[in-house]
């Protein structure tokens, strides 16, 4: 391992992403159907979905003009357009910084419009930590090109050579003292045509890292003031004239099918509209209160057939029994040397299994959408990380050509990989179509916990051993169901095999912050401590012996030094212990040292010291917040969170039953950010979560000699 920039081939680009059809495909109503046939659009409709199937993270690589990316307003404010969304990770501020840096304008004169499918160029969905390495460079290149166009136009206005122009704070000055403002240029009709005809390419000269003024600085949240005054309008806050509030009837359990229903009692309620369209049954009313009552009436008069469904009590047996080695063995598989025969002759070896429960993103804002039909055109405001995909789901569900659907994503109350789908948008649109009025639909917390999707559960089997010199001679690592992210070991091993094997997941599963790298890092880093014990070597020393010089080793040393590892590991105090773990994913590097206290059955994390490196740092304060947020969110998966289910129902579908981290759970945090100005910046919203759980597991073993091999960690 060397200090090479991130190689995108090693990223699992959301391969574990849900790839499903939209939740419903509605029959076109008769009038629309005739219109479609009459207009000869049926072929168009059939041909279009190919574009809709484009993977959410792969933006269309077409030439892009400046006018698709920027608007210069007559108030001298430059609007930047991007399909990225803001879900709390800081993309709005970061893109503002990128444009501000290259346009040489203060951040107050940059406005960012995000994720409006009718206005914004397609930068792909917001996932895979791709905004930093992919979108920010695009915005910077475009902004640098735009600045050049503006300076040339200003030179024409002032009748001087462009090299004479100094552009600062929104004013272009000639050496003579004459000047022109951005607002003046905005009024020049030539500007639009220049922006429209000017394309740009990646690789335009941008500000070098050592000359950054805005990037690299802790620019505060650009919507901070609106956030603290409650003025930010989230998807669930959007109001349209005459809007109704919707509810959808849900089955009582997974896979249940409706055998009969009496709609009449709900239809008889004043102001209530009831919609039934195939599998879809819902209602809308002037208030959520009335819509809720109507849904209750629908549920009381519905009969269902409920099929059997596996229980979380036998989850891991189920995953192993239903696994299909033939289906996925090759894709994430890697074999080097002959680990099986090496293992057979080794004396110091282990054969263990680690488990990871289903958990949920549980963003503070449950899924929400507002849908409005105007003359056959559908506009939906919704919280999603994949606006282009939701656009495509709406086109398919309602058999609409692409230009009849517009998706707008207001800044959204949390995502964490959990909002890649468009169910709520489709449902709101279906209700609105029958109601002939806009409809807002927000899922309840119970619906979110039940009908959204989950981080995959997983079973990971490890067989490994060390030779007489304490070197890892064999490493065999198999992940069932949870995914292939970070499945490769960064450690030098003489022989080995890594595999990801798909299984039949009883729950709907999909992306979650850092994907399966949390599960794979948990198993690998736990096993590394178990091997270090067999080799009778300190866990830090054991890792350093098996790592090449490079970025991972650097963060491991940085965390250990800050934590004072050597002293604290050798001076164990009663009931307390220290542990460490490290890993890499999506091109960034993390190492964590933790101290825990174990009393009876209670695990208390006292301190987490984490070092993190993601190339050149673009916003130190936001980076720190992301790293801290990842660590604390990671405590949830490490210590508390597990989705339980039985008879096709989630048993803990509420915040009072599903324990997530609170302020009182926060340990002492020591964050070391390594700023590598010589390396490209990569995204930092995911990887800082992956080392937390194994470091805690290793500390528990150090404290009380108990090796916990499950997430969440259990002492017995």
């Amino acid at each position, binding site marked *: 391992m060397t200090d090479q920039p991130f190689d995108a081939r090693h990223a699992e680009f959301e391969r574990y992403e849900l790839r499903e059809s939209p939740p419903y495909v509605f029959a076109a109503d008769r009038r629309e159907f005739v219109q479609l046939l009459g207009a000869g659009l049926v072929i168009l409709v059939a041909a279009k979905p190919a574009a809709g199937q484009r993977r959410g993270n792969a933006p269309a690589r077409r030439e892009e003009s400046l006018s698709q990316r920027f608007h210069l307003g007559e108030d001298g404010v430059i609007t930047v357009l991007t399909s990225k969304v*803001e*879900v*709390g*990770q*800081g993309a709005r501020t970061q893109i503002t910084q990128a444009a501000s840096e290259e346009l040489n304008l203060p951040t107050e004169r940059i406005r960012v419009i995000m994720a409006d499918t009718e206005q914004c160029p397609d930068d792909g969905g917001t996932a895979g930590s791709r905004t930093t390495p992919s979108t920010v460079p695009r915005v910077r290149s475009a902004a640098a090109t735009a600045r050049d166009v503006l300076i040339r136009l200003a030179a024409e206005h002032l009748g001087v050579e462009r090299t004479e122009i100094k552009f600062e704070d929104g004013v272009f000055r000639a050496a003579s003292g004459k000047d022109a403002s951005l607002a003046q240029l905005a009024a020049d009709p030539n500007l639009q045509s220049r922006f429209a005809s000017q394309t740009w390419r990646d690789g335009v000269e941008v500000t070098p890292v050592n000359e950054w003024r805005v990037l690299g600085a802790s620019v*505060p*949240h650009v*919507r*901070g*003031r609106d*956030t*603290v*005054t*409650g*003025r*930010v*309008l*989230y998807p*669930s*806050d959007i*109001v349209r004239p005459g809007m109704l*509030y919707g509810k959808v009837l849900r089955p009582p359990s997974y896979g249940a099918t409706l055998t009969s229903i009496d709609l009449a009692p709900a239809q008889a309620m004043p102001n209530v509209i009831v919609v039934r369209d195939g599998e879809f049954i819902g209602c809308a009313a002037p*208030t*959520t*209160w009335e819509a809720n009552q109507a849904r209750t009436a629908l549920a009381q008069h519905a009969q269902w057939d409920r099929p059997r469904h596996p229980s979380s009590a036998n989850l891991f047996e189920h995953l192993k029994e239903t696994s299909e080695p033939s289906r996925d063995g090759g894709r994430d598989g890697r074999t080097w040397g002959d680990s099986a025969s090496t293992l057979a002759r080794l004396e110091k070896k282990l054969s263990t299994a680690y488990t990871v429960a289903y958990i949920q*993103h*549980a*963003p*503070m*804002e*449950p899924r929400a959408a507002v849908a409005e039909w105007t003359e056959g055109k559908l506009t939906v405001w919704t919280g999603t990380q994949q606006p282009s995909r939701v656009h495509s789901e709406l086109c398919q569900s309602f058999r609409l050509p692409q230009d009849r659907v517009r998706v707008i994503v207001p*800044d*959204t*109350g*949390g*995502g*964490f990989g959990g909002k890649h789908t468009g169910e709520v948008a489709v449902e709101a649109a279906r209700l609105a179509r029958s109601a002939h009025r806009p409809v807002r639909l*927000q899922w*309840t*917390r*119970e619906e979110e916990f039940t009908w959204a999707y989950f981080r995959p559960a997983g079973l990971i089997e490890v067989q490994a051993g060390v030779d007489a010199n304490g070197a890892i001679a064999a490493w065999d690592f198999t992940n069932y169901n949870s995914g292939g992210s970070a499945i490769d070991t960064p450690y030098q091993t003489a022989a080995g095999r890594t595999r990801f094997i798909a299984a039949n997941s009883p729950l709907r599963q999909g992306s979650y912050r850092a994907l399966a790298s949390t599960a794979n890092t948990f198993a690998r880093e736990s096993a590394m401590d178990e091997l270090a014990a067999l080799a009778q070597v300190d866990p830090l020393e054991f890792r350093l012996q098996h790592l090449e010089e490079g970025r991972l080793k650097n963060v491991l040393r940085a965390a250990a030094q800050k934590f004072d590892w050597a002293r604290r590991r050798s001076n164990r105090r009663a009931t307390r212990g220290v542990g460490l773990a490290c890993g890499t994913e999506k091109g960034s590097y993390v190492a964590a040292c933790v101290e825990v206290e174990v009393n009876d059955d209670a695990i208390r994390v006292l301190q987490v010291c984490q070092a993190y490196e993601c190339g050149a740092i673009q916003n130190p*304060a936001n980076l720190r*917040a992301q790293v*801290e*947020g*990842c*660590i*604390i*969110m990671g405590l949830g998966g490490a210590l508390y969170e597990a989705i339980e289910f039985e008879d096709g129902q989630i048993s803990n579908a*509420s*915040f*009072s039953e599903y324990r*997530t*981290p*609170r*302020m*009182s759970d*926060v340990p002492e*945090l020591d964050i070391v950010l390594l700023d590598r100005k010589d390396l490209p910046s990569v995204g930092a919203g995911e990887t800082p979560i992956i080392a937390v759980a194994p470091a805690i597991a290793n500390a528990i073993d150090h404290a009380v000699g108990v090796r916990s091999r499950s997430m969440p960690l259990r002492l017995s």
Partner: protein
Amino acid sequence: MPRKFVLQINGSERTTTTDDDRPLLDVLREDFQLTGAKYGCGEGACGACTVLVGGQPTRSCITRVADAEGQSIQTIEGLATEGRLHAVQQAFLDHQAMQCGYCVPGHIMTAVAFTQQNPGASREQIVAAMSEHLCRCCNYPNLLAAVTSAVARP
């Protein structure tokens, strides 16, 4: 049966016609477009819906509108006066106590009452009070810093 309510919201009288049992949160958000208070759980467990009723932090998602009648109701929209942020809002801004921001209005309303009632509160007291709120971005270090500074300078 629906009836007329006169509510005291952010210092003004507001009227609506609705059922006694309807959640105060829905009335604020749907009848008066006061959308700063958020729906998060519907069971009073997460704190996103918190407003002040009679000066006390109250989970509006589990409070009947009838129970708020006749008391002063304060929401995030009523905190800043003439464009000047309340000291707690300013502290949240100064300490960047926000990521997605959805939980922030609820946190702020609890912190407003807490700082008034507990000047000079200890770290333990602050943590205990604020741990009644959830932030799934887990921006707790900044939230703690904000409330700590608001307690020090109410």
